């Protein structure tokens, strides 16, 4: 076992941070650590928090974390913000709402850019969850980007999904994208210190009542991160959802989705780098591209040819 791996397992902050950078940069050095860490994962409960920008996700994460800390839980936070497609840079501002947590040894916060991934997450998110899990975190909170596009990728990583909305945006059902409606395990109406909460709750309720095919009754919880209200209720509901998942097959099913997504993604990446790292295959790709561009070959036949060469 490498020194870095051992230290991650003991919860050493700097080593956790360094290994996250390695996986984020797809550094081959991370692979042996990830292999070793895997048998130490599976203990953390992963909570995804999604919803439009400005709805108070980071502020809620801050309040949730403080309450979890009172309950003696260690908390890992992954806060994702968009990477600019033009410059490749990113402005990651979620820590602004969590300053007080920085010096708590039982909390680890990492801000990440999407780096080209779609769906509100970032490519390294599976590995980062595993690293935090193996390092001894009890709860892992993931804040998705929140720019309003379909951020349903979170179903592949989270055990419990919280969809956050706020009053006063108009019809709540309309403002939450269809995909998000289907993946929510808990609805939160944050900024409940503002007018219009009852209406927003009623609108969400009428929609939740239609979801008769699910035996988990989706709770709708009013919170105010500003006034620290509703946070304990939210935590109780996360706990209730956790028990529900463990009592039914939902937990295994959802984890299976995650493992499947993770494995298939790895295979995809491996196959592509296998092709590109092999001189002969790589030149065959180049050659195919040439023929495709002059309409001498179609991409489907080209892919067949390359796969056949690969399997030889």
């Amino acid at each position, binding site marked *: 076992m490498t020194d870095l791996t051992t230290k991650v397992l003991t919860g050493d902050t700097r080593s956790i941070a360094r290994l996250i950078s390695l996986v984020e*940069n797809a550094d081959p050095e991370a692979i042996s650590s990830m292999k070793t860490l895997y048998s130490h994962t599976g203990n953390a409960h992963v909570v995804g928090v999604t919803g439009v920008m400005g709805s108070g996700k980071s502020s809620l994460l801050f309040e949730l974390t403080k309450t979890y800390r009172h309950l003696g839980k260690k908390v890992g936070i992954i806060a994702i913000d968009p990477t600019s497609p033009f410059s490749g*840079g*990113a*402005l*990651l501002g979620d*820590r602004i709402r969590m300053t007080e947590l*920085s010096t708590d040894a039982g909390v680890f916060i*990492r801000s990440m850019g999407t780096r080209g991934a779609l769906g509100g997450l970032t490519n390294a998110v599976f590995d980062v969850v595993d690293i935090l899990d193996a390092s001894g975190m009890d709860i892992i909170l993931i804040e998705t980007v929140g720019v309003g596009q379909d951020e349903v990728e979170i179903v592949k990583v989270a055990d419990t999904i919280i969809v956050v909305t706020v009053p006063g945006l108009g019809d709540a059902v309309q403002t939450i994208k269809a995909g998000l409606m289907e993946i929510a395990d808990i609805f939160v109406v944050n900024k409940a210190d503002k007018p219009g909460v009852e209406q927003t709750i009623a609108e969400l309720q009428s929609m939740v009542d239609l979801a008769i095919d699910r035996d988990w009754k989706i709770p709708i919880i009013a919170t105010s991160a500003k006034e620290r209200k509703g946070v304990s209720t939210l935590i109780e509901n996360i706990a209730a959802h956790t028990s529900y998942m463990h009592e039914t097959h939902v937990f295994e099913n959802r984890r299976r989705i995650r493992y499947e997504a993770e494995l298939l993604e790895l295979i995809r990446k491996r196959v592509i780098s296998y092709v590109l790292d092999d001189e002969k295959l790589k030149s065959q790709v180049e050659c195919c591209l040439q023929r495709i561009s002059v309409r001498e070959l179609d991409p489907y036949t080209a892919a067949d040819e390359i796969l056949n060469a690969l399997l030889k």
Partner: protein
Amino acid sequence: MAKKIRVLIAKPGLDGHDRGAKVVARALRDAGMEVIYTGLHQTAEQIVASAIQEDVDVIGLSLLSGAHMTLFIDVAKLMKTQELTDVLLIGGGIIPQEDIPALKKAGINEIFGPGTPVDDIVCYIQKNVKR
């Protein structure tokens, strides 16, 4: 995936003006860096702890209140005790010329006064990151 330069921008101390810090943060983002913006009123302990968790290459401090001699030096000292030797520490804000040598001696790698073109800061970081 290529490594990206990660920069933590923080405002230690009590002054409440973060316009300059935000301008720099945006310029660094536009230069392709990942900027972790931590906001106002950060203590040295919070800044250094955040820098460790975020595994940054650079810490950028901004200060307008005149307390740089203590606050900047506090961060530099804490970085030393925490052995953050491969992290670049830079500062900006209203800092009298005569204070600069002492700040550099204390471990602040570079100081950028008001009106420094943001491109200079971008260039400095790109040339001087330690890893």
